[in-house]
């Protein structure tokens, strides 16, 4: 298909082969038409390299892939960073792991690989040689200097107090006001995409569940959907409803924990203690429903069987206990004062950065894969938007989404079960995409399989990957002691980002 034909017909699935010289115009036209760049993945096709750009829009569910073939010797693509901020991040990732150069990139520096990585070693290339020795990086950790009267630099991490994942944050402050913050992540880079290579569906799903421990359902479901599309496996309606239910159960226990943790970061630990108790009840519910507290091991290729359904009384109990916690927080004037106006992410910034999930909806960006790429059509789903973009908004979005999730679970268990959106036919031989609204935001997986059904390439996009830069933007003019609160209100994944 050609780009203009895609734009005219708006098909559910399309693949467009473009020459590198036409890429900018083609991608520009899709972005102009309202498509979102969801994923960029390079592939090693032995004779050549190939870059896949996945553009999505919805509703109705539309996915357009642009494929660009590159020569092995000079893998160069024109940079899309000027058109899309996420594109620039994907291109830097691709340059590190595949050696594909994005020409004209405004930030032509490593993203994934730290200073001690050999510069010419690109591990996802099939011809990648044995890694040479790590380089010294003790003194090679440069940040762009920030200078001026009274500017004070605070390095934090990568090892933090408390049991959280590693990330380095560098603050430049005047007094207590943050004038700039840079995050350096990828301390937990484990080569997840490389680990997918050669796995069959069962192994791939087990790995996907472990990409980010708190998003076991989100990632394994996205992986399952992608694999089913690639392998032509059909899923019956009951299994799809069960999957939609699991997705909401995952959202519930995580949102409840976040609401408590936000209060705790304002030193209101009473609400946190109550929220943790409620989270424990939800985890026990998860265990009864799936046999695993974190909902692992239930989603299979074309299947999803629950051990037992949650009872309605349990859902009522969760709703009332959660209501008490929220009321407790809202009644505390100091907590509300801490939340309001803190860490504002403006609507325009959220759009420019391409923020996903809770953070997007708190800044008034309507962006939810449950609407754009739905599994089921739930009447009880209503989008919950806030417009202020501060910590309060992100708190409120979570509070409202808990109610929506509970309603969706009830509807999915009810007599008149919601309709299942039947998946479209496969359009590209042995490849597939899975798009799922995890509790943090939209998770996208894209897989390619060989004739035996084993994975040759899997690309994973956790919403954290695109949303992390928004944290720095939201911190402008915030004071240092409010950073933990702002960070917690985004609650982005390190493991899902670092892969």
């Amino acid at each position, binding site marked *: 298909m050609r780009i203009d034909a895609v734009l005219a017909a708006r098909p559910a699935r399309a693949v467009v082969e473009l020459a590198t010289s036409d890429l900018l115009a083609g991608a520009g036209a899709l972005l102009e038409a309202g498509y979102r760049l969801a994923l960029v993945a390079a592939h090693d096709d032995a004779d050549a390299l190939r870059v896949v750009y996945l553009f999505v829009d919805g509703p109705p569910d539309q996915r357009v892939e642009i494929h660009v073939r590159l020569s092995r010797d000079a893998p160069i693509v024109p940079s899309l960073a000027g058109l899309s901020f996420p594109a620039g991040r994907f291109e830097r990732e691709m340059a590190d792991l595949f050696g594909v150069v994005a020409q004209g990139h405004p930030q032509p520096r490593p993203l994934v690989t730290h200073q001690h990585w050999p510069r010419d070693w690109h591990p996802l290339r099939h011809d990648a040689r044995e890694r040479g020795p790590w380089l010294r990086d003790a003194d090679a950790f440069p940040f762009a200097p920030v200078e001026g009267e009274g500017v*004070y*630099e*605070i*390095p*934090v991490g990568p090892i*933090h*107090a*408390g049991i959280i994942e590693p990330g380095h944050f560098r603050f430049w402050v005047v007094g*207590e006001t943050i004038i700039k913050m840079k995050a350096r992540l990828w301390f937990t880079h484990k080569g997840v995409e490389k680990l997918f290579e050669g796995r069959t569906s069962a192994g791939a799903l087990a790995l996907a569940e472990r990409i980010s421990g708190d998003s076991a359902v989100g990632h394994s479901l996205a992986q399952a959907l992608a694999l089913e599309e690639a392998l032509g496996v059909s899923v019956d309606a009951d299994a799809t409803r069960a999957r939609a239910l699991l997705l909401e159960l995952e959202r519930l226990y995580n949102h409840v924990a976040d609401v408590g943790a936000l*209060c705790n*970061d*304002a*030193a*209101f*630990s*009473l609400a946190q*203690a*109550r929220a943790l*108790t409620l989270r424990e009840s939800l985890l026990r519910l998860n265990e009864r429903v799936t046999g695993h507290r974190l909902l692992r091991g239930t989603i299979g290729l074309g299947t999803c069987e629950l051990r037992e359904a949650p009872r309605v009384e349990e859902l009522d109990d969760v709703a009332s206990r959660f209501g008490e916690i929220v009321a407790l927080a809202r009644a*505390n004037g*100091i*907590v509300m*004062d*801490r939340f309001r106006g*803190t860490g504002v992410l403006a609507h325009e910034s959220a759009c420019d950065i391409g923020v996903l999930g809770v953070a997007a909806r708190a800044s008034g960006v309507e962006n939810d894969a449950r609407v754009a790429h739905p599994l089921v059509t739930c009447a009880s789903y209503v989008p919950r938007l806030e417009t202020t973009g501060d910590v309060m908004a992100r708190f409120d979005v979570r509070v409202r989404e808990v109610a929506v999730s509970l309603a969706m679970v009830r509807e999915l268990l009810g007599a008149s079960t919601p309709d299942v959106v039947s998946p479209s036919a496969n359009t590209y031989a042995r490849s597939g995409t899975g798009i799922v609204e995890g509790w943090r935001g939209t998770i996208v997986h894209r897989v390619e399989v060989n004739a035996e059904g084993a994975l040759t390439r899997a690309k994973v996009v956790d919403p954290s990957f695109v949303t992390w830069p928004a944290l720095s933007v939201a911190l402008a003019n915030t*004071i*240092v*002691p*409010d*950073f*933990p609160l702002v960070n917690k209100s985004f609650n982005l994944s390190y493991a899902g980002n670092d892969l």
Partner: protein
Amino acid sequence: MKSTLLWSGIASLAQLIWLVLAGPLALGLMRKVRSVIEGRDGARVTQPLRDLRKLAARQRTRPTDATWIFSAAPLVLVASALVLGALSPLASLHVLMSSRVDVVAVLFVLLLGSVALLLSALDTGTAFAGMGSSRAAMVGAMTEPALLVAILAMSLGAGTSNLARLVDAGVATSTLAGPARILALVSFFIAVLAETGRLPVDNPATHLELTMIHEAMILEYAGPDLALITWGESMRLVLLVGLFSNLALPWGIATSVGALSLGVGLLALTLKVAVVAIGVSLFEVTTAKLRLFRVPELLAGAFLLGVLSVISAVALR
């Protein structure tokens, strides 16, 4: 005369021993209260004592760039608390040098410990400690005036700035609920919360380095030095709470020399401190930590209450 001196010495010694134990136990009690309200079992009340023993047995470490200030600060902190423990009228009005212990002097000896910690934090040269000491200096600069004005108001009412006589005046009078006194006590109480790093000013339980005030200053301390600091801080807390409760509810304090009155005084002191500590805990559970730039507003409020107290003390005299 000689026996009075002897009894004063005994009273001071008894207070000292009481303080050494009461500091950590008060911390344990406050944590226990919080745990129970939050629905947890919580650690035993004696846990802080065990923590001190554990820390004391560890190897002594210090940052390579730190100077003698870093090593001296914990000692200054503990010494200042012990001196005040011996010389302040906590359980008895008749302690050593009681006729010469002025309330302003007591406050400044107490603040000596704060200044020592502030300097030791700067001495380490780390980013967190510097941040913590800058915040502590800001809070301290606003707490001290509030404390002083509150004390001034109470001194005006009693006509003396001698601490023992100030407390004695409280015992003697029957009109404790005068406006000047209540305003001064509220102001004093807020200042005590700020000075001891409790909520809503500082969160003693946090692990978030970037939000810390007091904890950020002592991040580099470990082992026996940390034990000294935790111990010294807990004694300061109990001292201030003890002084507050003696000014607010002076009854029970030993007004005469002798074993019986001293015993009753210690018992009354323990009860009063426990009640106030539980009260602080209950207050802390229901509140949250103020945004850093709201702290000056709170302390300015405390200062204002102190000023109003002074005015009403003068006007009603």
